[in-house]
Each structure stands twice: as C-alpha cells, then as structure tokens.
C-alpha cells in the first residue's frame, strides 16, 4: 500500500487548527457540562419524586439516544429556534454539554452515595443540619472520588466531539473528512486523525492517573 505522507504534510496546518478546536470544544463543554451535571444530579436526588422526575427524564433522554441525533437536533432544531440561524460551534458545545451533563449527574450522584453513610450519621449526631453535613463532610469527600470518573468523561467527550464534523464545525475530524474528500483516500486522513485523538486521550489519561495518585497519597 502506498501511504502518501506528502498529503499529510500538506494538511498538517489544518489538522493543527482542527486539533485546537477539538481541544477548545471539549474543555468548554466539560466545564458547562460539569456545572449543569451537578444541578441535574442534585435535582434527581430530591426527595419529592415528582420534582425529581424531569431530571430523571433528562438523564434518560441524553443517555438513551445517540449523540448523533442530539447534535443534529440541536443544530437544525434547537439553535435556529433561539438564534434564528445555525451555528455549528454553538450547537456542538450545546449538544456536548447537555449530553455530558447527563453522565456527570450520575457521576455526582454515585460520588455522594459512595460515601459511607456512617459519615452523615456522625455529622448529624454532632448536631449538624443536613445542609451542614453535606457541605462540610459529604461533598468534600465526594468531589475527590468524582475526579477519576470526571476525567474519564472528559476523554469520552474528546472523542465524541468528532461528531461535530457532521454539522461542519471545523474540528479535527472535519479536516480528516475534508482531506478524504479532496484526495479520495481513506487511510491517510483517518489514520492521522486517529493518531491525534489517541495522543490527546492518552495524554489526558496519563495526567489523570498522576493526579489520582497524588490525591490518593494526600
């Protein structure tokens, strides 16, 4: 098989631009997703079943349907409804944030539930209110446990952001597809983008495992 390195060299600046957008999209989305996810997680944990229901269905919807559908719905349906125009970057960030929020909500809930219930009991028996026990005892411990799965969600988000190529947001995958369209070749563009994604996700995993180790010995 002839592998055209020259084509890759030619497209290198675009892969670079695309990689930067991929990173940007992912960072913005994980940040928004985390904030939203915390709120939704809290919502789902409400004692009153009826109030918790919308949050439960939010999570069901975003975890139960393909991200591709969500991106297309947001891009062609939701964003034009509000902005009056399509905007690929906005749609990508919105869809990725909404999607990851559903997963982060569950991470948050699991983090809180993983704390031994003896901890709340000890706090309550000292006279703390439920809110105080949450704030001083449960949440600080839960947040620490949330870091690994949150990092994992970030890795997933980086990969998922490739779907933004479908709505012509010029991220990494988009340029892979553009290159494929220009030269009608499959291996060069897709192996190149696969390699870049791999570098991104593996470096992130590496950083995360170091962070985890540091937190563990703290």
């Amino acid at each position, binding site marked *: 098989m002839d592998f055209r390195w020259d084509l890759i060299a030619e497209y290198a600046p675009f892969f670079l631009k695309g990689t930067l957008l991929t990173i940007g999209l992912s960072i913005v989305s994980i940040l928004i997703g985390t904030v939203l996810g915390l709120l939704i997680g809290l919502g789902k944990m409400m004692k009153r079943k009826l109030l918790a229901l919308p949050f439960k269905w939010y999570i069901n919807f975003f975890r139960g349907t393909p991200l591709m559908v969500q991106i297309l719905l947001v891009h062609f349906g939701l964003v034009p409804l509000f902005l009056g125009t399509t905007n690929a970057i906005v749609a990508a960030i919105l869809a990725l944030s909404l999607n990851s929020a559903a997963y982060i909500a569950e991470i948050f809930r699991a983090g809180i539930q993983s704390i031994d219930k003896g901890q709340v009991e000890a706090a309550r*028996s000292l*006279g703390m209110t439920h809110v105080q026990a949450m704030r001083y005892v449960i949440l600080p411990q839960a947040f620490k446990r949330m870091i690994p799965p949150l990092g994992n969600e970030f890795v997933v988000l980086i990969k998922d952001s490739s779907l933004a190529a479908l709505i012509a947001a010029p991220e990494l995958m988009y340029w892979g597809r553009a290159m494929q369209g220009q030269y009608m070749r499959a291996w060069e563009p897709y192996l190149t983008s696969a390699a870049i994604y791999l570098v991104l996700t593996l470096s992130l995993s590496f950083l995360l495992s170091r962070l985890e180790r540091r937190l563990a010995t703290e």
Partner: protein
Amino acid sequence: MIEVKQLKKIFGTNEVLKEINVTVKPQEVVVVIGPSGSGKSTFLRCINMLETITAGHVLIEGIDITDKKTDINKVRTEVGMVFQQFNLFPHKTVIENIMLAPVKVRKVPAEKARAKGLELLRKVGLESKAEVYPDSLSGGQKQRVAIARALAMEPKIMLFDEPTSALDPEMVGEVLEVMKQLAKEGMTMVVVTHEMGFAREVGDRVLFMDGGIIVEEGEPKELFENPKEERTKSFLSKVL
C-alpha cells in the same frame, strides 16, 4: 436524663423494637447487652433520632424529641454518639475533626475550639496526634479521637454502640480506660458492649435485650450471676 416510653420501631414489616420502656437517670451508666439482631443499635439510634421512631416517646432532659416542633439538631448537641466504625472524617485532621461541630454548629470561635480540642486530646492521651489525618491512626486511637470529638460538643449524655468490637484485642483496653474515666466524672452513658468486665466495673445497670424487648435488667453483678430469665442464662453461658 433519658426517658423512653413505649418505644416502637418497625423496618418495613420487621418489628425491631417492640415496646421499650427505660429511664436513664443523670450520671447513670447503663450497659446494654444481647444477641446480634436483638435491636441494641436500633434502640441507641432512636435515642438521638438517627432512626425515625414508629411509635412512643423519647424525652431527653425533659424534651420530647418525637415532637415535630422540637429542634432535633439542638437536642443532638446534648447527646454525643460513638460508633463501632469510628466514622471519623477522613478529609480532616484529628483536631479539625474535633473542632468542626463546635465551630459550625455552636459558632465557637476557632481559637477557643482548638484550645478545647487540644485539651480533650490530652484527656484521651493523643495530644501528639492533633495534626495527623485519621488514616494514620490505629483503631484504638481512632476510637479515642471519636470520643474526644463527641465530647467537644459538651454533651450531657453519651451513647456508645459497641465501641471496642472493631478493635484488635490489645487496643480494647485503651478505649475502655477512657470510657471508665468518663463514667467516673459523672457522665450519663448508655453503652452497648460485649465487654463484661467493663459492665461489671462501671455499669450501674445492665439491660439484656432480645427480640426487640428488654428481657431482663438489673445490677451487673446480680444479673450476671443470677439471671432470672432462661434466655438471659443461655446468652450469658455463651458469652462469659
């Protein structure tokens, strides 16, 4: 002073406490014994409302905690609790564990709470461990910190739920020593334990529970040597 009147607790369909009537007088040390599953922990947890009470009343210093209008958090500051599993806060140092509730609940200034905390640590023999995290302590040390933490709220009553049964045998003594000291100082205490030596030495009264009721009660010596009920006899024969 604790008054428990016709206390009932049902989990689902499981009637765990059937009808408990007990009065613990000020400065009294009451030891609760009984087989596993007899409801000892549940009884203790009902006294400071860690479990909702199905029926009956519990009065702490004359205040009915089952009354909806009672501020349960306020009552709980009067009742310290020590758990079998210590339940120290692992993300806080020993002194922070002790200071947390006084500062956040009682609004004691941090400086004062720290001084008080160090004094309590001295009392349980751990002044050198103030700045370490709980993970680096042995079981016996953890339990002594837990006792100091409960005492920091200056409770009038202390509840102990098998405080030594998660400990290696050679650490049991150091915890019991602290508890004996506390009893001597006149603390009102309810202690669930299998340490018969402790019961004999400092207990004013022993309650033997089985199947959700108090089967027999009496002075330790009397009850251990002359149990009246068949169930008590068979339990003591296994344990002593």
